[in-house]
């Protein structure tokens, strides 16, 4: 198994800061905007970005977690079933701007499910997608991110591994793995 580092800790930090600046550019003071981290792994990224945004804007920003397991289109078609996670959206998204956050964008099917799951909490004014890693050329659906940390060209057989400190790893790092 070959492991190639895509983003190390320092570069990741710079990337996150850049993403936050782009978000502030488009959403100014976040009074009409909420952040939704996608379960399970988009949550850590959403928390990091949320922390950085609150620090630089010095105000509270709404953060929620969205689980799309029950809305997936591959239920009963997977070898290993996906386990549902907590959805916590303690605010109304009706008429507000939503930034959906996930770590890796691959086929786009999770995002489709998340869009479906999100509608249960109201009709947002606008939805944007932020991903840390965009795996180009692997999309099954016409879904494109609005904010991208890094675009990588990958083969379908490869895997992107994101290590989060919040999940018990030593450092935040992102790897590309070649599966034998």
């Amino acid at each position, binding site marked *: 198994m070959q492991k190639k580092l895509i983003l190390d800790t320092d570069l990741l930090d710079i990337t996150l800061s850049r993403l936050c600046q782009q978000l502030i550019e488009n959403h100014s003071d976040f009074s009409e905007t909420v952040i939704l981290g996608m379960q399970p792994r988009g949550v850590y990224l959403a928390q990091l970005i949320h922390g950085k945004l609150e620090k630089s804007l010095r105000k509270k920003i709404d953060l929620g977690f969205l*689980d799309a397991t*029950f809305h997936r289109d591959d239920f*009963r078609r997977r070898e*290993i079933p996906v386990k*549902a996670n*907590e*959805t916590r959206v303690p605010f109304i998204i009706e008429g507000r701007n939503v930034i959906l956050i996930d770590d890796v964008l691959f086929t786009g099917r999770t995002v489709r499910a998340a869009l479906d799951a999100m509608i*249960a909490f*109201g009709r947002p004014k606008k939805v944007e997608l932020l991903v840390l890693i965009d795996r180009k050329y692997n999309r099954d659906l016409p879904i494109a991110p609005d904010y991208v940390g890094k675009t990588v060209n990958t083969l379908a057989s490869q895997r992107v591994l994101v290590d989060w400190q919040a999940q018990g790893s030593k450092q935040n790092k992102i790897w590309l793995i070649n599966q034998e």
Partner: protein
Amino acid sequence: MSRLSQKHLLGIKDITRQDIELIFETADNFKDVINRPIKKVPSLRDVTVANVFFENSTRTRLSFELAQKRLSADVVNFSASTSSVKKGETLLDTVNNILAMKVDMIVMRHASPGAPHYLAKHIKANIVNAGDGTHEHPTQALLDTFSIREKLGSVEGKKVAIIGDILHSRVALSNIFALQKLGAKVMVCGPPTLLPKYIAQLGVQVELDVMKALQWCDVANVLRIQLERQQIKYFPSLREYSLYYGITKKILDSLKKPIVIMHPGPINRGVELSSDAADSPHAIILDQVENGVAVRMAVMYLLAEQVS
């Protein structure tokens, strides 16, 4: 582990503690779903479920049907009283006819103990036992233990007294299995005529005095006197039963610690439970009903993983 060890839910006896915990974790998420403005998810949109009820039921059937609809399954209902069963059709023929119409899952209630087990041996569809005679009622036990976990934080180490007509109760048996698998201590309490002869062999304590049972327990699961199953008289009169075994607010207030009162419904108010006790803050009877939908959604969702 994110898959059940069984293809069917026939009884709590057949499933593991891990299965129960997986059902609970999934039900937590479904409870969240049914409290949203849009209470529906599309998970089972390509699954057809038949509710086959050979015995009367109001809340179990309604609860199953709501759970199915909130999972977006297609639902067909069947009740024996209005069907060809009256014309002499066998159980297996009836079910095979339903399955020939491309049904994936069967939720069945039957008056004969073991009826769903028999079916499971002969048909391909997933089966959920919604009560088989005086044997098991697994989803009721799951929602009862789920409600205890919700109210008290966990089931492990809790003392639960099951009070009333244990002899005719499928809820009692399923509850005993579920509580023991989750590490609770179980006591059964009732008049000697309504306690099965060898119940102590299941590892439960047996108590005849309801006051002692209430003083011992953290949770009292009060069962209905099932007059419809009693062909002979097991006690002199309902009035006498209520006098010796009826639980009132006054009795609850006299206890040293607050206990949780549960009841699987339908309540015979004034018999096993007085109105003031049933409506007191001790009672979580309506929470049980709400949790029933979430737990049944979890069971069917997890079984649907295995629909071929």
